[in-house]
């Protein structure tokens, strides 16, 4: 129970969205009343955070859009789109071998995914969330609304600065996922206690190759740090190189080399680091094989 929650706000949609966004920011900016954004509600209500005095429900702000923007070459995902909707979306299913759809679908059960939102996932930023890894691997951009207007940030940058940015305050309104080249392929691998359990460690790779050489590779790892991360060293190792087993092994080794994962009861630090290499190898090989 949010014991001290006294105010529930649900700003109405406005023909000029910025006006309703401004109302949200005004509510969030009140120093005397701790106010937080309410998306699906699962994480927030489960937190039983006694410091919360007010919530702003975004359900009426028309942030449920999920559409391909041909002009921008991106899939635009409103912050209130649910994981279930994204998992079933045709464009998402076709993007980079369906990594986005797969990532959205691998979380909780059916009834939980019907409420959990994509925006919520980005704000909560759980390290082992496969959706976040998929979004990172797909080079997603976060569109925020702030008191200074709209702001676009790469997802990795947003995640690393998210506490500060959200405190300004700011509202995540949309994610933009580049559609990528048609030849782009992706793969997910994870280790978990059971098949549908949240991953202990997960890896996502998106690879584009031409004439046997890697044109572009993005590798995202989860469960190996406080936040999901992009394995830049591994990506650099592969860029413009043939996708050989040796190159992939070296890239995976680089991905794991400098990690100091926090351990817990589901996996020690040592285990997580080892899995980072195993799973990086696996997804890079799988994605590379799909490009062939």
């Amino acid at each position, binding site marked *: 129970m949010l014991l001290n*929650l006294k105010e529930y706000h649900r700003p109405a949609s406005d023909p000029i969205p910025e006006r309703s966004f401004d109302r949200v920011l005004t509510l969030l900016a009140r120093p005397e009343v701790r106010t937080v954004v309410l998306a699906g509600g699962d994480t927030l209500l489960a937190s039983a955070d006694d410091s919360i005095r007010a919530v702003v429900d975004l359900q009426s702000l028309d942030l449920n859009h999920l559409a391909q923007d041909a002009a921008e070459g991106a899939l635009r995902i409103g912050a209130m789109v649910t994981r279930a909707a994204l998992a079933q979306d045709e464009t998402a299913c076709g993007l980079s071998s369906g990594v986005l759809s797969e990532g959205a679908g691998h979380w909780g*059960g*059916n*009834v939980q995914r019907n*409420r959990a939102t994509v925006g919520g996932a980005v704000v909560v930023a759980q390290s082992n969330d496969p959706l976040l890894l998929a979004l990172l691997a797909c080079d997603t951009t976060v569109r925020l609304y702030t008191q200074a207007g709209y702001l676009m940030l790469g997802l990795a940058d947003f995640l690393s600065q998210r506490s500060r940015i959200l405190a300004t305050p700011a509202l995540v309104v949309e994610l933009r996922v580049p559609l990528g080249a048609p030849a782009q392929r992706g793969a997910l691998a994870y280790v978990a*206690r059971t098949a549908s*359990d949240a991953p202990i460690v997960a890896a996502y790779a998106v690879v584009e190759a031409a004439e046997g050489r890697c044109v572009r590779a993005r590798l995202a790892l989860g469960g190996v740090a406080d936040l999901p991360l992009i394995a830049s060293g591994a990506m650099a190792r592969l860029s413009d190189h043939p996708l050989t087993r040796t190159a992939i092994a070296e890239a995976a080794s680089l991905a794991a080399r400098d990690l100091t994962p926090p351990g*817990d*009861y589901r996996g020690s630090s040592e285990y997580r680091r080892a899995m980072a290499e195993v799973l990086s190898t696996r997804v890079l090989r799988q994605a590379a094989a799909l490009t062939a």
Partner: protein
Amino acid sequence: MEINIILNGEQVALEAPANETLLDTLRRCGVFSVKHGCETGECGACTVRLDGLPVTSCTLLAAQADGHRVGTAEALGEHPEQGWKHTDGLHPLQQAFIETGAIQCGYCTPAQLLAAQQLLEQTLNPSEAEVREALSGVLCRCTGYVKPVAAVLRAAAQMRGENVPPSGRRLAPPINMMELPTVMLDEPPADYAEPDTQTTTVLPKVSVARSVETQHVGAPEPKVDAVKLVQGKPAFVADVEMRGMLVGKLLHSPIAHGYIKHIDVSEARALPGVHAVLTYQDVPRVVHSTAGQSDPIPGPLDFVSLDRKMRFVGDRVAAVAAETEEIAQRALALIEVEYEELPFILDPRDAMQPGAPIIHDEPDYVPFDECDPTRNVAAHIHIELGDVDAAMQAADHVFEAEYEVPRVQQTPIEPFVCITHWDSDDRMVIRTSTQVPFHARRLLAPVLGLPVKRIRVIKPRIGGGFGNKQEVLIEDICAHLTIATGHPVKLEYTREEQFVASTSRHPMIVRMRTGVMADGSMVANEMRVLSDTGAYGNHALTVTGNTGHKCMSLYPANRGADGASHIRFVADVVYTNKPTSGAYRGYGVPQGFFPLESHMEHIARALGLDPLEFRLMNVVQAGEEHPMSKAWSEGREAHPELIRTNAITECARIGAEMIGWGNKRRRSGGAEEQRRGVGMALVMQGTAIPNLDMGAASIKINDDGSFNLLVGATDLGTGSDTVLTQMAAEVLGCPPSDFITYSSDTDFTPFDKGAYASSTTYISGAAVVEAARVVAGQIKAVAGRMLDVPPDEIVLAERQAWAADGRGVTLAEVALESLHHGSQHQIMGVGSFVSPDSPPPFAAQYAEVAVDTETGQVTVEKLVMVLDCGMIVNPTTATGQVEGGMTQALGYAVCEEMVFDEKGKLVNPRFGDYRIFTADEMPELQVRFIQTFEPTHPFGVKAVAEIPLDGVAPAVANAVYDAIGVQVPVIPLTPERVWGALNQG
């Protein structure tokens, strides 16, 4: 604030505070099909349909639903005949759930129905995977999801307009153990029409020696309580509302060990809406045990309602009664407590070390048997059969190894919940989710300062128990609050409390030592156990004693020259500063079979023997004495027992065929990083506690020839009300639908020890049969007079009493005659039963796994269980018990574990973090029964409820051993543990 929703098609306006969840609002407004199972949206019991989509309502503010459509199970369908009013009846999904036996406790059923309804609105041709996906967000702890999935597929077929034949069928008749038949696998019958699911339950196909003609016993009757449960009717404790009812809450200890140095509750008491705040200073100190067991309690008395000393993180500090949940929570926050912390014990290996902190140093501690609180020993057991040391010396090989099993939680989806109030006669009425209503009444009387006769315990429907509710855990506090306030009080655990301040399975460290001859004959067997009872010793002696009593009896170790058993079982059950261990389905036996059956695998491999043949060479046989029976009986006088029925060899052979034992062992193959293996375990359990467990029943006839069957037995979702009704129906010659079965209420139903020790079908069932025979005798006397024939010539069948010449009178006519017309009296009978025997059920369990050798992840692909549980009264409920039990045991094998930090705080007190299996990740399950007729019971039954828990973990571990060639001696088999074993050098 006012919220407007369209609730089940009707516009309604509701008042709800900003912080109230939709779950709480709906329940406050009488929508009781929506259940509380957690507060984090992870169990799914609170599922509603929001604008058509199934979503959890415990993590949804009521305000979020404003302006939306909300659908609940109340709108699905209802009983077709309501007096003069007729309705459209039940929804096909509801009907299918009833017909397939998809309902056990029924607590999660409304949520499953809503999730399935949405799927069938999208497609009437769902695949099994789609059904499993649809149900994946609703946790079920009873069914293993087998029958709910089958029900959805069946409903879909019906809704497509297909002619779906009746669900379920009878089992093959029994094996005559005096003349064991050749076991033959038959082809499935042509009329087998169950939906083909991933977890198909295949009913047994065994040739037989003799059959027992029965009409209702052995039939797949629907559960007697299914219709109400499928409608989500207010049948559970928390569904009861009372005027002026207060909310009870507990403040729990944040420290593992120490004293309350100072406690100030003045601010909490002053908070408006607070009616009582109780601490150790306010309630009498009455030392007792919370274990729901027969008198005298076979364990130490080491617990008081509220104490100054804290013994684990989660122990009770204070209790509050307030007008609302919110006020109660605020009151808890206002209680100021200063603690004096003491050194604590978290590792049971430290408990008996010199200088260890003493957890129970209170002067009023009442020891039992060999417990020694000065050494933190809650119980000590030493059983010695034969000369073990000499037999070990004579053995060609002695194998020794250590194994470890974890603390796991029962996690019934309905948490502990209790409502207490004073009735108009100043009697304390305790309505509680308990497995032991009569024990609860007896144990609570001194604690509350009331005589037994001034306490009434009512057990409504229970949302699962699994042993957890064999504990009188919160009733005392709830009643103390009613005594303090004069008000009705409801106390309901949160999910976190259910984990932290409830009971769990005893973790154990087990050392095995076994003497074997070169040919594989076992001549000596020793098990040494260090068992962790946690902070209190409620089930310390009996659970751990059972570990030895049941497990060490499977292999009598009597294959030496003298033909005598050489068995040693030694156990220390120690206190630690962790949550209390207690009863959990299996009651110590799963903890013993993991080490025993892992050890058997290790020995077989070391000797180059087939593990199946090695086991069968040494396993106990029908006609032998139960090896441990004369040595131990739960702390009471022991008597020797004969094993009369035992089809374990047939179970093992058939199971081996089902899993493909011969072809699949010691394979290497598949992809580079994937290896596959198969493993097995043999297991046995008991059926009730001999010479102790007693059940009773009463039956009376009504004017229309129907009967009231009153039983003290406690149906916690198992279907016991149904099978007891079937037995009564068999004796009285009428269908189960002619019975109004009621359990249980200490004011109205006869005594029963409660639902534990796999006893109900055997003990309470025999009591029902006895009561029914008394009633049958009275019916025959009346009918004899009416037909002018001797009573002993009357036969009861088809709702009539028949004379040999073909004349008959209906039971309704008999009832009217006896109640209204001549020689008037109430036809009524009482029966009770206690047995000197505890006939063991036996089973063989098999597992097939894939192991990812790079990550250590184990995927269990198939589980097979073949059981000899005597005669099966109801194949549907019995298979449901096995499927659900296997699924719980699967969690024990691979993913369930309570984990604590360095200060004794549980780090995973919520679903998700504490992982239990969901519908979409289940392996294939196959269950078969090999029926034997146990002669000590009128219908030949033995137990079925607990044995499914016993062998899954060792079978899975042995399959992993087969796959990777390395034994992992600790469960659960988490990826890191398996990976560690693979990389240990």
